[in-house]
């Protein structure tokens, strides 16, 4: 298709979205960039002065920075792993014929609707609390010492909470993808002598590849900036055991009110996020084009 008229119409119609997003990106970004070169503490207004790269040096030399970087990767990677593996298995299960499929689906999808703050509060207090949480009760009931999740496995606990929230999303996308698998293809494989594990490895998984990429892309976008869950449950601690990059930037700019360093951190985070983005886009681009 495409006549000259339609091409110019297209340009006109896409421009509001492009301009808005461009503005949304560039204006705050350039301000952030500007602040990152200033000595700028919110609590000491009027004392802003040019600081050169000092803020960057300070942020990058923070011992917390590398652990935050590592935690961010663990967090995103761990959640992706759990939700995708769990999502595939769950999707396979739900796809089977059964009674009350609708209700099962309703139950499984529910965590996706829960506010991150609420889910963090509920998990922290009512489940993971080592004294009056349900897990502690359960442990005591079977004669075990209650495990102090948030103190001894803080990152793992957060991964668990966030995975719970995102599992439905992954499951749903994978389920729709699964249902789109041509049943004749599976039958052909069956005729060809493939048993279920073979069919899973050779037919189902490759078919899901595209859906998995999409899940990875979307979730990564959201998971890179996990914040509320950390703030509510562990406050980044103990130590910096559950501080991710977002939280570190938050600590700089809104706990210390050091906007300069916070902005430098923000810029660093943006650069890192874009590296991840480019990497992901490559992968997606390849997978989505075919």
């Amino acid at each position, binding site marked *: *298709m495409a006549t000259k008229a339609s091409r110019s*119409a*297209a*340009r006109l*119609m*896409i421009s509001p*979205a492009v301009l*808005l997003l461009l503005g949304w990106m560039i*204006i*705050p*970004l350039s*301000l*952030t960039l500007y602040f990152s070169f200033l000595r700028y503490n919110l609590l000491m207004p009027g004392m802003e002065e040019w600081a050169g790269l000092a803020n960057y040096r300070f942020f990058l030399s923070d011992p917390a920075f590398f652990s935050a970087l590592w935690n961010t990767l663990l967090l995103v990677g761990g959640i992706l792993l759990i939700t995708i593996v769990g999502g595939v298995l*769950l999707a396979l*299960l739900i796809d*089977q*014929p059964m009674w*009350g499929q609708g209700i*099962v*689906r*309703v*139950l*499984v*999808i*529910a965590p*996706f*609707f*829960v*506010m991150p*703050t609420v889910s963090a509060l*509920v998990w922290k*207090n*009512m*489940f993971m609390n080592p004294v*009056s949480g*349900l897990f502690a009760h359960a442990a005591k009931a079977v004669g075990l010492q209650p495990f102090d999740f948030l103190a001894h496995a803080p990152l793992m606990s957060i991964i668990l909470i966030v995975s719970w929230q995102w599992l439905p*999303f992954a499951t*749903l*996308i994978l*389920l729709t993808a699964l249902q789109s698998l041509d049943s004749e293809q599976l039958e052909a494989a069956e005729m060809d002598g493939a048993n279920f594990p073979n069919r899973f490895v050779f037919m189902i998984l490759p078919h899901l590849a*595209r859906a998995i990429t*999409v899940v990875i*892309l979307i979730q*990564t*976008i959201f998971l890179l*900036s996990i*914040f509320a869950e950390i703030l509510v449950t562990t406050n980044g601690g103990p130590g910096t055991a559950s501080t991710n*990059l*977002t939280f570190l*930037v938050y600590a700089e700019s*809104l706990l210390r009110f050091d906007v300069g360093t*916070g902005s430098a*951190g*923000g810029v660093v985070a943006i650069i890192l*996020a874009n590296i991840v*983005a480019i990497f992901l*886009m490559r992968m*997606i681009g390849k997978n*989505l*084009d075919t």
Partner: protein
Amino acid sequence: MARAVTNRRKTITTAAAWFIAFLIFFPILWTVLTSFKTEATAIADPPVFVAFEWTTENYGTVMERSNYFRHFMNSVVISIGSTVLGLIIAIPAAWSMAFVPAKRTKDVLMWMLSTKMLPPVGVLVPIYLIFRDTGLLDTRTGLVIVLTLINLPIIIWMLYTYFKEIPNDILEAARMDGASLRSEILYVLTPMALPGIASTLLLNIILAWNEAFWTLNLTAAKAAPLTAFIASYSSPEGLFYAKLSAASTMAIAPILIMGWFSQKQLVRGLTFGAVK
């Protein structure tokens, strides 16, 4: 055309699926149950499941403490407003990308998505200053604008993938039939993509409803949605499990119920072009 499944196998899958579904749902169920307990029962050891004296006093306490209805209305207005505004901007954009693809289309789309990767904390102060200067702090308008911008990439992407599934022929047929661009989008494209648009709408309402960073940081009282409502419960004094549960239940119930009712729509549309 699946083969007949034996009842035994169906029973086993049913049991397994129900068990897992129940586990996944349990935290929510437990929260709802707890919200009807007294504080003392809420922490009882061993825990009681249903055999307790049900009370609604927690809800009373919570209602008394904060203006739930206003938070609720703010949430509704903000999430629906931002989603609808997003759709209005996104539909033409997605039309362009899906039906008049250029070499750059894919790059533009990916760039749009990458704007979502900016960590919000990194730009809070600039945005706060901009909002202060434009008088948008603590206004629904301000939040609608921010959430629209945040969710726009996702909306565009979703719509783009749905639109791409609509055969170009049909739009061309409309063009041959004398439809202007406006009529083409209004009378042909939009109704055809309605299921996709509906699930885009739903997903983004959910995302907007649960957005907790900007809604918390850019509002004080007038425009504060339910995320702010729940923030005042994050660490109250004394025994608070039951009250926390009540507040939590109230914060998530509307969206949960909406989600359940529109579950089919949502699920059907949640593909992001992943299914092909």
